[in-house]
């Protein structure tokens, strides 16, 4: 079997360093539990949701590539496939929060009265059952996609591609529904009185753009450090750069739609959300959030050359990721800290730890299969791709 030649092993020292970084995150969390338990728990929710979202972004990206018959990306499809490894890790973190710190959700802790559908939807057993259901659906669908993709390495059968196209089409819709509900369940219900119908879409845009950013960073790294040197070229990066540009702008569009409509109507029950997040020091973060998620990437990636330069593109991917972190921070922390800003050492350390954990999970899955889908029918097209 010639595909064993494609096997890639990360160095042990790298793995050790990544574990060390993850340890810092874990220690920060434990220290946080003592120093500022509310923040530590909220931060765990935040990092777990981020980790899960990155995994889901990988799976969704694979589904989109299959469903659109996008040949250009076949060569590096193993990267988003392996990103799915973050889903179980994130799910564990979320379950820890749901099981051991229900106080994060006022409705779970029994604050405030609710009735009717609100009470039916937001009750603990149903909430946990739904969470499990989402995890199962996501893992089942992305698992099927990955399995078929890997099996094709063995037999080169076109039927796997066809099957994956069908699975992807269904998954895209199932994913849209479940990710929206999950974001409502886990993030929006921290403030159970506040609602926004665009919330699911908002999270979707953030998830996808940061997923693309992570893919770009992994590609640049894997291209430099050998395994994808011959499979990834400037054209692939260029197209990913376009995606980063487009979805960063899409995020801005969704952000603006939500903010402008709430600002315009100025109804108290909606505007409290932004009033909390624009007061004091948080107001500065609010602006930085827009700058990171859209302002800088938009201006820098506008010229065509920037999207083809790995250094620039990688830098923008980092900026977008930082933006996503800040976005989640602004969404999750203020209701817990009541808008008071403290030095976010717990959040920052846990962020670094989660990043390391993400890379570890990614590598674990990435080494299990050849780093490129060797017998994919679209591989040739992907390798000779130029826009």
């Amino acid at each position: 079997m010639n595909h064993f030649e494609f096997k890639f092993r990360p160095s042990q020292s790298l793995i050790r360093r990544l574990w060390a970084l993850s340890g810092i995150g874990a220690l920060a969390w434990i220290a946080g539990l003592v120093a500022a338990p509310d923040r530590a728990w909220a931060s765990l929710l935040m990092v777990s949701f981020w980790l899960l979202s990155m995994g889901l972004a990988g799976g969704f990206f694979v589904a989109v590539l299959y469903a659109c018959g996008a040949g250009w990306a076949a060569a590096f499809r193993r990267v988003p496939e392996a990103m799915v490894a973050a889903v179980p890790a994130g799910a564990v973190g979320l379950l820890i929060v749901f099981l051991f710190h229900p106080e994060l959700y006022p409705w779970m802790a029994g604050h405030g009265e609710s009735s009717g559908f609100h009470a039916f939807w937001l009750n603990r057993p149903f909430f946990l059952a739904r969470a499990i259901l989402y995890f199962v659906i996501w893992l089942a669908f992305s698992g099927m996609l990955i399995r078929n993709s890997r099996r094709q390495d063995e037999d080169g059968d076109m039927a796997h591609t066809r099957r994956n196209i069908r699975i992807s089409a269904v998954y895209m819709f199932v994913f849209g529904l479940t990710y929206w509900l999950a974001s409502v369940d886990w993030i929006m219900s921290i403030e159970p009185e506040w609602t926004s119908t665009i919330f699911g879409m908002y999270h979707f845009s953030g998830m996808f753009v940061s997923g693309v950013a992570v893919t770009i960073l992994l590609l640049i790294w894997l291209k430099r450090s050998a395994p994808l040197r011959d499979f990834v070229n400037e054209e692939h990066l260029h197209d990913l750069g376009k995606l980063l540009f487009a979805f960063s702008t899409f995020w801005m569009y969704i952000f603006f739609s939500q903010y402008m409509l709430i600002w315009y109507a100025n109804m108290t029950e909606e505007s409290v959300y932004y009033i909390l997040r624009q007061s004091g020091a948080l107001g500065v973060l609010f602006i930085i959030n827009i700058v990171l998620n859209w302002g800088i990437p938009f201006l820098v990636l506008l010229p065509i050359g920037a999207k083809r330069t790995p250094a620039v593109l990688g830098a923008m991917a980092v900026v977008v990721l930082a933006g996503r972190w800040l976005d989640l921070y602004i969404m999750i922390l203020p209701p817990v800290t009541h808008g008071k800003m403290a030095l976010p050492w717990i959040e920052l350390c846990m962020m670094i730890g989660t990043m390391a954990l993400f890379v570890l999970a990614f590598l674990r899955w990435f080494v299990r299969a050849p780093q490129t889908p060797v017998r994919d029918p679209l591989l040739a097209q992907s390798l000779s791709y130029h826009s």
Partner: protein
Amino acid sequence: MSQFQLLGVFEDESALISAVKAARQQRLRIVEVYTPYAVHGLERVLGLRRSRLSLVCLIAGATGAIVKLWFEFWTMAIDWPVNVGGKPWNSLPAFVPVTFEVMVLFAGLSSVAALLIVAGLWPGKQPKLIHPRVTNDRLALLLEENDAAFDVGRVRRLLEDHGAVEVTERLTGEEVPA
């Protein structure tokens, strides 16, 4: 001073591309290539620069956006401030949509205007067709003598070798019979 020119007419883009490549290799002066559609990859073979019209688009768009945003603020908050529904004088979120539209309008119209100007196109301009079927199914390569070594016979053969179905000799600026 009128120069001697040779026009090679092709039926197929691949023939044209190979002829262009050969002509460039032999350092012949290519006056222009005429095609019924935008042949992709030909710009690389011809060594044409990327058009800088995108710069026009960018500058016009940015100008439009800035001017409009300023104008909106000026009319709403400075020239004639009117209290509408208690909205702040500086209602930036509400000024964004029109700013965006005007940016697109400026950028789009300026780019097209710039194209028409630099390409010398205007309504009612009489076309100077190099070959009557060049907007239908023929691709044409126009070469011009660039030095004394320009050998008409050799160039004619080169064009024919690369699949030219028709080669005509002409002088600079010569009208084509309709």
